[in-house]
Every structure is written in structure tokens, then in C-alpha cells.
């Protein structure tokens, strides 16, 4: 009798456990456990919207960057350079120009090079007197001013990779495709690429009062 009772109790307990197990594992309300699962699950059937919202900053003249699988737009550069095209002044070799204009105010007087140190970089690292209208790479191949990121990426590989992907740099268009990003020189002056210290745009005097 005793054993029978124990057996019955055991059966009942087992039954309760199974019931509990079945009830507690019912996932009827939510399809996904977390947001990463949700993103993965719902982007499987992602369709590029047929009518994309009107292009933001459409007035900016752009050029297309194609790097591997990514392709996006960057602002066109040449029309933004004040004294482009360079050959309009640079008609003769630099040496001759310097002699001729010795008594005149020097052009590019405001450019100070503060980019790496002088052992690593000087004017001729990026510019060449043989071809003033273009930039040139470390191996002296020609780089168009519109695609100056190719010049920067020779050293700044990590930043370049992040910029291509979208983790570095500022987006000019909206979030919706087509993507329009700032290129290196839109934020960094190539001659002094560091951001400068400045005062914050805001100070909350009320907050100071509240916390006193």
C-alpha cells in the first residue's frame, strides 16, 4: 500500500511538472527574443522601397564612389576649390614663379602644414609640380581632386574602412538610400586635419540653480 501511494504521488508530481513545462514554454505573445533576432528575422524579406523619399540636399553636386561592394555619393570637390584650376596661375615651374613674384604677396600664404611631422609629410607628398591640377599618390600615380579620399586612405586605412562602411564621417543625405556622405576633406582640413578645441554651444544656467 505504502509503495502504491508513493507511486501515485510520483505520477501526480510528474504530471504537474510536465504541465508546468508545457505552460511555461508557451511563446505565443512574442515572435523574437531580442531586437537583434527581430532585425535579422524581419530584414530577410527587406525590399528596397519602390519610391524613395525625395533626395535630401539634392542641390549638392555629387560624384559616385565605388569601393568593392559599397557605392555611395560624395560632394564634388573641384568646383568648391577657390583657385581651381591650378594651372591658371601655375603656368611655369615653381622656381621661376617664386623668382618672378618675389616682391608680391605670396599665394597660399594662409596654408600652414600641421599634418604628421615634416619627416613624414611635406607639400610634395600630395601635390606635384609636374601636374598641379591633380594630386598624386605615394607611388606618383595621378589622383583626381574629386576622389581625394584615395590619397588619405594610403595612410589612414582604418578610418577609410570605417568611412566606407558608415561608422566614420557624417551623412549629408537622409537615412534612406541613396547614401550621400561627406568625404575626408569636407570635415578635415587636409593641411591641419585635427579638430580644434572650442567652447560648448550651450550652458544651462537653470540646471546650475536647480542643483545648488
Amino acid at each position: 500500500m505504502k509503495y502504491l501511494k508513493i507511486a501515485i504521488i510520483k505520477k501526480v508530481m510528474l504530471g504537474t511538472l510536465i504541465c508546468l513545462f508545457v505552460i511555461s514554454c508557451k511563446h505565443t505573445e512574442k515572435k523574437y527574443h531580442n531586437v537583434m533576432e527581430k532585425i535579422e528575422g524581419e530584414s530577410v524579406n527587406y525590399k528596397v522601397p519602390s519610391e524613395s523619399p525625395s533626395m535630401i540636399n539634392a542641390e549638392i553636386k555629387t560624384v559616385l564612389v565605388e569601393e568593392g561592394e559599397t557605392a555611395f555619393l560624395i560632394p564634388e570637390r573641384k568646383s568648391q576649390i577657390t583657385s581651381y584650376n591650378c594651372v591658371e596661375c601655375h603656368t611655369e615651374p615653381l622656381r621661376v614663379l617664386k623668382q618672378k613674384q618675389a616682391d608680391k604677396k605670396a599665394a597660399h600664404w594662409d596654408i600652414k602644414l600641421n599634418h604628421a611631422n615634416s619627416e613624414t609629410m611635406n607639400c610634395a607628398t600630395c601635390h606635384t609640380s609636374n601636374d598641379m591640377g591633380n594630386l598624386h599618390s605615394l607611388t606618383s600615380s595621378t589622383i583626381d581632386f574629386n576622389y581625394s579620399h584615395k590619397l588619405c586612405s594610403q595612410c589612414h586605412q582604418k578610418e577609410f574602412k570605417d568611412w566606407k562602411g558608415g561608422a566614420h564621417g557624417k551623412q549629408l543625405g537622409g537615412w534612406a538610400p541613396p547614401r550621400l556622405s561627406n568625404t575626408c576633406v569636407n570635415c578635415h582640413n587636409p593641411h591641419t586635419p585635427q579638430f580644434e578645441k572650442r567652447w560648448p554651444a550651450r550652458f544651462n544656467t537653470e540646471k546650475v540653480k536647480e542643483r545648488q
Partner: protein
Amino acid sequence: MSNNTKKWFSLNLNQSKKSATCSCGNNEGSCEEKTAKDGYSQVMDVSMNRRSAFKKLTAGLLIGAGAVSTSCSVIGGDESKEKSAIEWDEYFKGNYKLMTDKEKNETVNRLVRSYELRTGKKINMSSKDAEDDVLFGYAFNISKCQGYMDCVNACIEENNQDRASQMQYIRIHEMEDGKGFNFEEADDNYYHEVPAEGHFYMGTQCFHCDNPPCVEVCPVQATWKEKDGIVVIDYDWCIGCRYCMAACPYDGRRFNWKTPEVPEEEVNKNQHYLGNRLRKKGVMEKCTFCIQRSRKGQNPACVEACPTGARTFGNLLDPDSTIRWVLENKKVFRLKEDLGTEPKFWYYMD
């Protein structure tokens, strides 16, 4: 339901008509009400005791009497009649989440007209719904933020925040290097040249959690998660109890202790019902990822204002978006991940 425009004048009070679907279109969120109730039933079909019934009745009567006396008065002008008609309709309108597209349009038009009657200026107000295949997400690069606070200014102007009280959605915390995220010692109201030596900067705002605790606690369902992931507030349905403020583990919500005031010439006239339209005293508000901009394909104002590119915004469902690249290629983390709130706001470093 849609063929009956002024439903609250009907006399068969307790027969709320049935509509096929919930107009919020959200079948996974917290919208449990499958029968869309009209504004009148939402107010009246609530079990209440005698005391609160008398309170509501008195309040309603006072407003009603005011409206009736103005609209029926012989001396009152057409404009004041229209004004009180709008006030009447606004008082008895329903929860935005349960409105049909037509009702949404009507309330937006009323608010635009009411602003015009008050100030003589035209505003644009949208009631644009979430689009399919869109889930908004945000990434913040801690290495890049320099603490300039341009984002804060842009946010204030874009979202018509009260100027005097300096209530702001975004906080930038100045933190000491090597101490991790120590909010106790961080300074969110610094004023010296930035970036300061030996410090880093991080911004917080509403993280638009995928499992938002603030939505759970709202006793009147005045806040909810939209299909595109934005957590919104119906300012006209909010009773100002501040439960959501207490429930938010990220200090993401703000309360209007006074009537927000924005100088007329500084009012951003591109508005959204759930976004930057002018609020009133005693309601909650918070970051909406600039819903009036993001639903048009634009980036939020903070993203556009940031001079360092520390802020990335995008569609999490688009495999080619920049935000997806950040999530897949950088070491990202979120604040208080162990709470299971699933914020859609990631931090990363270079």
C-alpha cells in the same frame, strides 16, 4: 464608423460600433483593444465610483457650458464660435492610437486651424504613419563626440522645447578616462573648452527600447511603440502621472512642469502630431527620433547638427544601411543591457 463624423452627439451612448481592425496597425504591441472605441465611449465606458463620476461630469459640464454659451451667443464672433467648436471636438476626441486615418486627419486639421486662430500663422502638421520595412536605430561613436553640444541646440529648436526651463531631450555627459561609465561622477553641464584633457563624452536620450518599460506602466495607454520602432506619446491623452518617467531606467523622459513657451518667430512650423507639435503643461514628452523628419526620410536634427559625425541613424531592416554596418563590424554595446529593455541605441568606439 467613418460615415459618422460627429459621433459624440449620438444618443445610443453605450452601443460602440465595431470596426474590423485596430487602427494603430500594431498587432504585436500593447494595443489590446480590438474594438475601436470612439472618443465618447473611451471617456464614458469606464467603471468609476460616484466621486470620480461627479468630478468628470462637472469638468465636462463646465467646458461644455462654456462652449455652448460662446457658440450660441449672439454677440460672439464667427471666429470665437469656431474656436469653441474646435475646443469641444478636441475635448471629446479619442486616443490617437485608436483613430482611423480620417479621424487623425481631422484632429490635425483642427489643431492647425486652432493655431491659426490664435496666432494668425499657418503651420504644417503631419499624421504620417510608419512605413513598412522600416525599423529605426541609432548608433553613437564615443571616440568621436567632442562635447560641443551642437546637437542639444538643434534638438531644442527642432522640437519646440520650452526655452525658459531649459528642459532638453539630449544630455551630454563628460566622463573621466579610465573610470568607465560612471554617471555618478559625470558632469552633464560643463562649461569650459572641449574636449577636456583626459575626458570622453557620451550622449543619452530616449533609446526607443524594443521592450519599453515606460509603455507597460502607462495607465491610460497614452504612450506606445509604433511599427517603425519609435516610442511616441499622445500629448492630448497623457494625464501627466509620470509613471513612465519613473519606469524609464535611462532618464529618457521629460515632464512639462509649466506651459512650454517658444517665441513665435522661433516655432518650428513643420510638425507631426506625435512629434514636435506644441505641448501643454502637465504632459510628458521626449525624443521621438524627430518623427516629423525621420518619417520623411531625413535624419534627426541631432544627427544633422553633429559636426564630428559621431551620430549615425538609419533603417535597421535595410542590410545595406550604414547603421547595419556599424552593428555588424564595430564592437557595439548598449546601456543596461541586462534589464532586457532592448534599446535601439548602440554605443561604439573607433
